């Protein structure tokens, strides 16, 4: 058991830092206030990811047969950490390299791989996840957006909600219902967002500009070949990809960076001598480090080739606790940060409150931990 990064891993981290330092604009911190899903940042990311691809920093963790360098899970972790604490200059494209690409590779048809993987590797495509619906949030398996097979086409009707990136995405990774058999009746369809019949409406939000949307599907027609995997296979595929997604955002790193920033501001104005503030700051730091080690333990499991199960939910919940603690610390001791005094801390706060909601709510993670880590008898349904 050892907790040090290797020299190569440290060098990799510095390579990313140096690259970001050299390639992000001088006003980046202010600019990134727009948020990762904003039109401004999305447009920036479309240029920036092309450059990342050119220098081999877009998907170096992918296996060589997918065009990556086969660097592996630790390097993916380091890449995610550095990008996220820099304000995620990849915008929504982080999803492409974390889970959409690998999921396409594992479950896609040759035609789907040919069509979608290349734009991802060039740094040119943006996806959205059509998962939640007005009546299917935590209870995702109750989703009702219907895909009817008719003359070799799927005709899709229904509504998605709280969809990130939908306003500017090229393609939707869409969960649809193809039969009434709850989880077994859900099918993934890859839908180009410019297909007639799709209407996107932005939802005003607390988490940054352009982040979440309603998406309406009215007789949206795509060929049967747009189906991803088999009919009814969505639950298996999503479980696979969400495990990657839960690890995908190293939120604990940003929480820790935000905490350090807050402490610096408190020191500058002479408030950090107060013991109650120091103790609370240390508690926040411990929660960030706790989340970090829990996440690393899951990465280790992935590296060992073991199936990642419910421990990713445990790591995720640790992250939620860290995010929450830092958000609360800032509000309590630096209230001016959210009113213009610190774009960075405001940006963190907007990201931070998402931690327990996106990619499966924190309470669902607790249910998974109770059943699958603690192996408590299940609740009656």
């Amino acid at each position, binding site marked *: *058991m*050892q*907790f*040090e*990064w*290797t020299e190569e*891993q440290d060098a990799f981290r510095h390579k990313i830092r140096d690259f970001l330092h050299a390639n992000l604009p001088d006003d980046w911190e202010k600019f990134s206030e727009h948020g990762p899903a904003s039109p401004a940042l999305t447009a920036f990311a479309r240029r920036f990811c092309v450059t990342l691809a050119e220098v081999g920093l877009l998907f170096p963790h992918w296996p060589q047969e997918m065009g990556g360098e086969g660097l592996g899970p*630790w390097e993916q972790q380091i890449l995610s950490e550095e990008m996220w604490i820099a304000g995620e200059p990849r915008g929504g494209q982080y999803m492409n390299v974390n889970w959409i690409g690998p999921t396409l590779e594992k479950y896609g048809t040759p035609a789907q791989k040919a069509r979608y993987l290349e734009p991802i590797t060039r740094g040119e495509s943006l996806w959205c996840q059509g998962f939640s619906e007005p009546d299917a949030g935590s209870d995702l398996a109750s989703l009702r957006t219907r895909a009817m097979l008719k003359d070799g086409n799927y005709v899709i009707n229904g509504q998605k909600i709280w969809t990130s990136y939908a306003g500017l995405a090229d393609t939707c990774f869409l969960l649809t219902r193809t039969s009434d058999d709850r989880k077994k009746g859900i099918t993934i369809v890859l839908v180009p967002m410019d297909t007639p019949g799709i209407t996107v409406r932005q939802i005003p939000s607390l988490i940054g500009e352009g982040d979440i949307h309603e998406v309406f599907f009215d007789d949206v027609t795509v060929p049967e070949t747009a189906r991803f995997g088999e009919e009814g296979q969505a639950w298996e595929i999503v479980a696979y990809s969400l495990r990657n997604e839960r690890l995908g955002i190293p939120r604990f790193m940003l929480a820790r960076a935000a905490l*350090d920033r807050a*402490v610096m501001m408190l*020191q500058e104005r002479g408030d*950090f001598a107060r*013991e109650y503030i*120091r*103790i*609370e*700051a*240390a*508690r926040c*730091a*411990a*929660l960030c*480090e*706790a*989340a970090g*080690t*829990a996440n*690393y*333990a899951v*990465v*280790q499991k992935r590296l*060992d080739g073991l199936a990642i199960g419910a*421990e990713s939910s*445990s790591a995720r*919940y*640790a992250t939620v*606790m860290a995010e929450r603690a830092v958000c609360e610390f800032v509000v309590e001791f630096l209230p001016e940060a959210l009113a213009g005094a610190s774009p960075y801390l405001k940006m963190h706060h907007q990201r931070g409150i998402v931690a327990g909601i996106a990619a499966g709510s924190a*309470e669902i*993670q*607790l*249910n998974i*931990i*109770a059943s699958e*880590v*603690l*192996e*408590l*008898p*299940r*609740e*009656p349904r």
Partner: protein
Amino acid sequence: MQLGLNADQRQVLDSVDALARPFLSPPLHDAGLALESEELDAALIENGFLDVMAVEELGPVTAALVVEKLARLPFAVEAAASALVRPLIDPELPRPLCLVEEGRISVPLRFLRPGATVVVVGPSGVRSFAASGGLIASAQDDTLYAYPVAFLVGLPEAMTVHDVDPAEVIRSWRVAMAAEAAGLLGAALASVVTYVSERKQFGRPLGTFQAMRHRLAEAQVATNTAYWLAMRAAASGDHADAAMALLHAQDAARRVCYDYHQFLGGMGMTLEHPLHLWTYRLKLLTAELGGRGAQGLAAAEALWG
């Protein structure tokens, strides 16, 4: 970064498991609060399990792993200070080892008895003495801790002075306590999970009720991370890591000690269920080294100056 056990560590832990097998359950006739076993203690010494830190290929992480594992037993063993702190001071110091902060000698001291080595750590340095009967006041018989405890009535005129940085001793003391707490947290959680999986009310196991499932799941998160922070602190030798590890463990202990007895309902008030053997050790560890606030101040100092 390599978070799995290496072959040496696996072998040591397997051997500890084998040795500990006869001590996995508390004796049924013994309803006392603190349980000790001379036999277990002797077996640990004989096999050198408390001396693994000095072995080059094992080191402090293996010592912390051993301490964590031993803390899971229902028997209280003085392993943490001996395995993780003693090697820094003098590996030959007679056990048990009782660590005490200079100026705070009135606290109940775990394992204090005639012949124990008391180590006083503070600004004046690191000093030790062999405790004699005259310096010890026993705690009352029904003391509410699952460690054997006693009080020091004073310090002797002469103490052995050790040439070691007191800050380093306190750092490893924090690691030792964090590792011990991690094991206690793990064993207490397992014990409660077993009980609520079997105990039925309203026709179904208590563990099917979400009111309990969520608090237990949160306890799992705290327990898992207490383990990892303790191991990382052992590995890094960093002051901030050590203070954060103990802070996090004491925070977790404070929460679960209440919850776990609550979840056991009527049984949670009795000595018939062994839960107290872990929780009533954790309770005393929440006071170790000044408690959470003191760990927080130490961590803040190490992190931000």
